[in-house]
């Protein structure tokens, strides 16, 4: 099964199993935060289709928590983390399924070298230890402060600082080869 098909099936399966009346709270949460989840996912995956998949997966999982689940204390932080991790999962899964054609993964038009560099960053992130990847994405792609990340992850702020520092060094090192081969400056492309 290709990654794309797998995800489509997962969406269908999730939808079939989400036999819970939609709580008002979820509707409000979706209304308030779907943009945040989408943007967060897009910053990591770099394409609209994946970001939409992340959006659906995150909220279907939230729906499946049901009414009995605890109220989210920091809803925005939770959703941002969920979006980051789900997006990273997609990138990891894609790497594990090399046979998947790029055209199949994205419905976006080709983005050129800037997008390649972006995908290189996403791949490098996906190869990191998940927590470090998540911290890096929250820090540099989402722009959160170390303290905020520490609170979200329940770890020491200084540990975050150290991990951010080391991950940053690692990623620069990982992308060094790419830049040498392309020597192209990065220019962000708009969807």
């Amino acid at each position: 099964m290709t990654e794309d098909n797998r995800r489509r099936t997962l969406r269908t399966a999730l939808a079939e199993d989400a036999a819970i009346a939609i709580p008002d709270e979820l509707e409000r949460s979706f209304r308030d935060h779907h943009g945040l989840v989408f943007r967060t996912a897009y910053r990591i995956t770099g394409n609209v289709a994946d970001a939409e998949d992340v959006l659906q997966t995150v909220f279907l999982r939230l729906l499946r928590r049901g009414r009995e689940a605890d109220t989210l204390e920091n809803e925005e932080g939770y959703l941002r983390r969920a979006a980051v991790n789900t997006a990273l999962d997609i990138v990891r899964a894609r790497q594990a399924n090399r046979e998947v054609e790029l055209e199949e993964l994205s419905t976006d038009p080709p983005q050129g070298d800037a997008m390649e560099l972006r995908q290189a960053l996403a791949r490098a992130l996906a190869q990191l230890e998940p927590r470090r990847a998540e911290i890096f994405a929250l820090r540099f792609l989402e722009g959160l402060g170390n303290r905020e990340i520490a609170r979200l992850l329940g770890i020491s702020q200084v540990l975050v600082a150290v991990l951010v520092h080391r991950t940053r060094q690692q990623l620069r090192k990982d992308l060094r080869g790419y830049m040498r081969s392309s020597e192209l400056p990065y220019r962000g492309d708009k969807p």
Partner: protein
Amino acid sequence: MKKEKFDQMLSEIRNEQIDEKVIVQAGERVWNSIAGVSSTEVSSVLRTCSDFQALIPGYLTKTLVPSRLLLFEDHMHACVACRRAVERARKSESQVVLRLENYRRDSRIWQWAWGAMGVAVVALVTFLIDQGLFPGQHPIRAAVQSVDGSIYSVDGGSVELIPAGYQIRNGQEIRTAKGSTAVVRLLDGSLVEMGERADVEVSRGWKGTTIHLDGGQVIVQAAKQRSGHLYLATDDCLMSVKGTIFSVNHGIKGSRVSVIEGVVRMDYGERTAELHAGDQASSNSSVSKVPIQDEIAWSRNAAKYMALLGDFAVLQKQLAAIPGPGLRYSSDLLPYVPDQTVIYAAIPNLTNTLTEAQRLFQDRLQQSPALRNWWQQQQRGGAKLEDLLNEVKTFSSYLGDEIVLAAGKNGQTDTAPVILARVRQPGLQEFLQTEAARLSSNPARAGLEMVRDPRAVKPMPGHPLLVYVDNDLMIASPNVSEMQRVVMRVREGGGSSFSTTPFHQQIVNAYQEGVEWLFCADLEQIVVQNVHTDSGSNRLPPGVGDVRYLTMEHRDLSGVPESQAVLNFASERQGVASWLAAPASMGSLEFVSPDASIVTAAVIKNPRSIMEEVFQIIGSSDSNFEEDLARFESKTGVNVLSDLAAPLGGEVTLAFDGPVLPTPRWKLIFEVYDPATLQSTIEKLVDSFNRERNASGESLQLTKRQAGSQTYFAIRSSSAKGLNSEVDYAFVDSYFIAAPDVATISQAIQSRQAGYSLTHATTFRSLLPKDGYTNFSAIFYHNIGPVVGPIAEQLKSSGALTPQQRQSIDALIANSAPGLIYAYGQPDRIVVASNSGFMGFDLGTLLTMGHNGPFFPQMLLGGALNHPGTPTQ
């Protein structure tokens, strides 16, 4: 990849704008999908982990339908508990069913098993080494070698007092109490000396040991590292060393690193610095450099470090930035002030200088009741200062850059003030004679008298202001004897006995910093003598008697107004004067959002000591106090000192954070060292109140509510009259937060978790002063514009206001810019300063009083301003 390109790439990804239409369309598609299927009833719903775990047998026997299989695998990916359940089930299954043959037959499975085992071993070894559990390593990272005061272990919500010898585990947070220091010895022999309120963790990783400094100051004596480095990490920089002595001071504004010996590599932001002995660097430009001696003076080893520092040539760097024109660095009038001067005011000769001096003086007097009393005594039987200044301001244009007013105290007798100024142009004498003649035409109000020869004037009571011009110096005083003494000093070329006094030195020191407006008072002579002669009826609170000097300054530095008041004490602050603690980090501010309108926060001395001193003060004036206190404690079962004051820490914040209407959203945040005792005390007090319920039938109800992992408490009062009120509170980490409702507390907690706090707000940070401190002892922040603006607009639009009132409201809005007043408590003095003023009410804006002037003067003097011809006397 180059740092710049890497940063640029991240920045562009972060700031990339996505077409809103794309998001909206995606959102609609996703929501339709969710909403469309949610109404479909399915018999078996997967909601909880139990539901998923019920599928494990089917998963292991591969009998799950594809959609369930996908959902199951997806959940396993996200849920550690269920993954372990699968592993357990798989193991138990393998015990029952021997699959050895299968393994033999299927070489791929066998290879997978070996691979998995290899990965598991590597992961296990990595984990063991990283956690310090490998042979030769140890989860204990350090031990408390010595403690001067108190040191606590902080673990989530629990705070535990720990003794010397206590062993600190990997990642365990420890914190010194206010006024306490401690030395922690790491396993490699490195010593970490923690200053007061320092927050430290120690962890070990592949590359070496890391000391995590969450706040406060430490001095690290790094032992020679056999392998790797010793790291010290704050939230904004990372230091790595091999073997050295260095100090790190980390606070709200950033971190400052000072190297005493060796070399420290400092990574902060995008920069890296290599610091050598005697060097100092900070992570933020608002944390300026200070002499390293001062930075490490708190250390018990300060003398040793100072000796080390003495070996290096560059240890002290003068503040390079000298303020621009307008500041004066010395005074040639100072040698001529009276011998017993106790008040010295120096004001620049600007437009309306004397008017402003009069106002400044009044402001000062209003702020100090003791000064006010002294001046009222001084003014009895003589001309009032206000009158004197009004007379003098008319000829200010003849005067030099500075006008000095000095007044003395001879034993218990207050001497008349003396005004001194250089004469910068001829004609002053003639001008004054004309004025004197004009004034003498009104015999009842002869306000000015020119003196040609002071020695020829005989002392007599009720003299008008005597003015004598001697070459280029003008001397004015209502008392001829004072004037004669000044003239004598001038002719002798200065050199009065005043120049040998500490107060004189205090004034000279003030000039050395550059002054524009300067007010110095020898409070030791004024307050103490005045109070002590009051037959004990007006006894000073403990510690206030040690007050020595009050120095107040205002200056403009490159267009930025800076006001500062310094209260000096004869020795280390005692009693009431010591309640304000030395600057320290204020974690309670993390609960305040950037939207707060008014915030006041302080670090204070041990609350128990404060309470003891309060008891002492009350007890000295109320003989029944001890008996009343004992009765109260007996009734409530609460020992005020042990149960109420002792559990509290040394930090308190009160903030108005949120909408003002219908009721203001306030927050009170206290640091708490012993939440359990404080909660028990609150319960006892509520019980006691209900037992002693008053005639109105008012009662209190204490309830507890759990929301997620957070416990909220509510105290509701209800009375027979139907008046109900509520205060909610919660304990978060080592803080007690109280507010009028749970939502406010929850919001405060979320603000802290998200880092969306006042201390990170641009508005607040732009107000931070550039000085040598990383923390404050107290702050008062105001940003009422966003709150007052809409209300003011609503009032204006109501049409019920007079033009005068509308003008006042306009002035209020125009002057409601945010501001910050801050205080530093030092061992023998308290410094209060501001570079923004309070609602436009500072000396600089006083000069612009009138249209668009500050609110308070408009409000108070608006009528007078609209009628300039109206006499003010």
